[in-house]
């Protein structure tokens, strides 16, 4: 008697909460666009320095770690690629696999996951702390719209920096793979580069970059939704920070699959 309605109720409540959060995220996106376009007319302009601050934090400071990880992924892909093609004696065809999987999949995915862990969580923690310290209330009573002041700069910076980082990761991962391939298969780096370019079409690059722009939006919205829904003091901030990383990464992976399903077949 007691167990099943309880379970049903819990599932129902969790679903309703999830849908409410998605709705909140969507309205945030709409409101952000509103302030971006009409902010100046409403005397609430989105400030360029704030966007640069965020871009610095989200993009430039992530460069070292993106470089290291992208290079590592490139080498790893080269090793696996050569291994999987060896039974067919087709090792030299490895470039196609590397080029396509890096540009279409690995660079956007790794960059997205990295930025989610670095900046999505930071965003959630910052907004959560501001919420608890009444800083968000303070903004509102000062006549400063919190979405315009806090969310829009982060969203814009993400939308510019995540694709930019992805492009960089493309380059570094292909270079890493190239270095390994040229050593292993006695193929010169120039030939490797040429074959990579042969197998890549512009469509592959835009496929990867548009995914990374979607990831950028997801990371920001998940971070903001979680940060804004904080309750319960410092412990609550910790909870939403973790939650935002898990949600952002899940959203990225699932969206990636849906995007590929819709676009590639």
């Amino acid at each position, binding site marked *: 008697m007691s167990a099943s309605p309880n379970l049903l109720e819990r599932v129902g409540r969790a679903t309703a909460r999830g849908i409410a959060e998605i709705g909140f995220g969507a309205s945030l996106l709409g409101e952000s666009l509103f302030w971006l376009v009409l902010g100046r007319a*409403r*005397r*609430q302009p989105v400030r360029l320095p704030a966007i640069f601050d965020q871009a610095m934090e989200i993009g430039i400071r992530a460069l070292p770690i993106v470089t290291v990880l992208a290079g590592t992924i490139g080498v790893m892909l080269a090793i696996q690629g050569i291994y999987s093609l060896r039974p067919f004696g087709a090792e030299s065809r490895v470039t196609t696999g590397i080029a396509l999987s890096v540009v279409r999949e690995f660079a956007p995915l790794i960059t997205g996951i990295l930025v989610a862990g670095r900046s999505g969580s930071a965003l959630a923690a*910052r907004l959560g*702390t*501001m919420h608890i*310290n*009444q*800083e968000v*209330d*303070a903004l*509102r*009573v*000062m*006549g*400063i719209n919190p979405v315009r002041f806090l969310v829009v700069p982060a969203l814009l910076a993400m939308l510019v920096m995540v694709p930019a980082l992805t492009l960089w990761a493309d380059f570094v991962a292909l270079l890493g793979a190239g270095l390994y391939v040229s050593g292993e298969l006695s193929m010169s780096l120039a030939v490797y580069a040429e074959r990579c370019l042969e197998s890549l079409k512009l469509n592959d690059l835009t496929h990867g970059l548009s995914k990374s722009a979607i990831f950028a939006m997801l990371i920001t919205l998940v971070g903001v939704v979680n940060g804004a829904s904080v309750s319960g003091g410092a412990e609550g901030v910790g909870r939403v920070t973790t939650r935002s990383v898990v949600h952002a990464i899940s959203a990225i992976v699932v969206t990636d699959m849906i995007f590929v399903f819709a676009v590639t077949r």
Partner: protein
Amino acid sequence: MSPDRPNPIEVRDLVTHYGDRLILKGVSLDVREGEIMVIMGGSGSGKSTFLNHLLGLLRPTSGVVRLLGQDINAIGPLDLFDLRKKMGVAFQGGALFSSMSVGENIMLPLREHTNLDEKTMQIMARLKMEVVELAGFEHLMPAELSGGMIKRAALARAIVMDPRLLFCDEPSAGLDPVVSSSIDELILRLRDAMGMTIVVVTHELESAFKIADRICVLDKGEIIALGSVDEIRAHPSERVQNLLNRRTEDVTLDADAYLRRLTGEG
């Protein structure tokens, strides 16, 4: 009061809920031009909720809050935006932005709402810092300030636009007696020098008696007393006297209800 100039703050029959719980049960209050109104009450009396409604941070179930003659829950966003430039709020914990220095915090309203050049804004911020006796601290970060300094900085930020209405949430809570009384004097000075209408929410009796022109005592979501300091001191109501003399209220015993609470069947 002249009829053409309404009271700067008018609250009529404010009823509010938190979830299903009734918090304010029809509160009506007028604050006159240039007076310091202290809203007093114990924890859970609804005074913080009341303040949040005065600031337009929460939407009431019913009732009207008029600031400077405008119903804050009915006017458009642009009017509300203009209204908010005429009010300053010092939050309990200061609510200074931790990523900005004290000076940047104080300059933020100027930066967002005016087109003054940097130098002018700095001078205006320093002027207010002199007023709150924080001169020379503008380069410190909020984390480097003491409790009293944070409250002062919050006050400086609240008055930087020379607002007509100033709201202070527990301005002296959690401070030692000397610092707390200096904050009280600061509030009195602000009113005298700038002619602001000030609403202070506090549970500190001493500070309330020191600064108030009138006191409004909230208890369980109702105004149980409203009057000058002397009127409140001499108030006949037992609930008011209990609060003033820090007596706990006698709880009427209901054995059945007590039993139900214990067994969790209430």
